[in-house]
């Protein structure tokens, strides 16, 4: 046993010396594939409504047979579905189409929205969301109710009120301290 240990110890001494002094001369090459990726800005316009019998909001669908003096639930908000923080703005296009054969001058102001002016600011035809919207977050609603004035006359019978909502987003990175300083808004409007 002791003899074996002696031999092992001797070999260890030899190996430690040999390992230090041994060298080999050659060349080697290898390739690294490096990847650069871009981020994105993606939003989703959400149009919801509270059902007549209450409960959680559901996707909005067209409402028919609305009478003057009625409030219709329509919740408009924007969700950031991309990977980066974004500035948000919304434009609204209101119109009233009279029934076929009815003539007269329409007043779109008779159809009004309860715009949330606490979180949104109107400027130059757009409603700007006051704060940056982080990835995965949803804005406070721009409005939640569409009201039809009680003084809508007979020319509005069978008419159609159309509210088109367009949402836009641009990156917050390298793009101003506030939404009003931001540039790079899309040229086309996403409905």
């Amino acid at each position: 046993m002791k003899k074996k240990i002696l031999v092992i110890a001797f070999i260890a001494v030899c190996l430690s010396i040999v390992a230090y002094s041994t060298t080999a001369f050659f060349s080697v090459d290898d390739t690294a594939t490096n990847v650069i990726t871009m981020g994105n800005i993606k939003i989703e316009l959400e149009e919801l409504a509270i059902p007549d019998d209450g409960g959680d909001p559901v996707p909005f669908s067209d409402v028919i047979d609305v009478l003057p003096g009625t409030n219709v639930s329509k919740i408009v908000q924007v969700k950031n579905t991309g990977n980066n923080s974004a500035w948000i703005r919304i434009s609204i296009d209101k119109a009233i189409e009279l029934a076929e054969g009815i003539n007269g001058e329409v007043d779109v102001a008779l159809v009004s929205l309860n715009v949330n002016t606490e979180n949104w600011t109107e400027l130059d035809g757009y409603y700007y969301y006051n704060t940056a919207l982080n990835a995965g977050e949803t804005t406070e609603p721009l409005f939640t109710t569409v009201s039809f004035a009680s003084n809508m006359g007979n020319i509005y019978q069978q008419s159609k009120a159309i509210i088109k909502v367009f949402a836009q987003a641009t990156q917050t990175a390298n793009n101003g301290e506030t939404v009003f300083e931001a540039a790079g808004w899309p040229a086309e409007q996403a409905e």
Partner: protein
Amino acid sequence: MKSFIKNVVVLLVVATMLCGLAVSAGAQGKVTYSEDSDKFIFEPGSDQSPTDLFTEYKGLMPGDVVKQDITVKNDSSNGVKVNIFVRSLGAQNDSADFLSQLHLTVAKAEENEMAYMFDAAADQTAGMTDWVFLGTLYSGGEVNLVLNLEIPIELGNDFQDAMGYIDWEFKAEELPIEPDDPVKPGDSSNIIIYGIIAILSLFALFFFLTKRRKQTEQY
């Protein structure tokens, strides 16, 4: 006696483990040449490429200017001296349109920042078309590269989620150690480890020889 042998064995095992100890990589890209495995190791890699060194260049946005550090190290376990080179093979075919929009600079950290080895659109090979000598590295020696990538603020929506692949080739040429070569930190650490092993072994040898002599004298 048994406990002494046990201690010696433990010390030898620890010393051996220290020889092969690999320091884990940080967030920066790391290129490690290892004579033991006869290859380069590229870390940390990414979901897109296992040899990806561009850890900081993910999810970039227009207007970003992003720095990336890459360390190239000779991690051979004995006194190996190597010349290290790098060259760019350029953008992979389907990446050129995207990468041509970006501006990349590459420099050695130790040198003047204006001494770029690469200063061009990211799809080009430019100053790295031919092999660029990074340095002579002894065991444990390293050289640091500093990259800067600029994304133009005008980059349009066409490049959302775009992905670009750039191939870099590294080469190591092993050189003989000359008598007047400076001792580098990596070298000295190996010498110490081998020295410890040698001393411990000699001590064990001396112990057993002494013990045996005493036993012989008693009989």
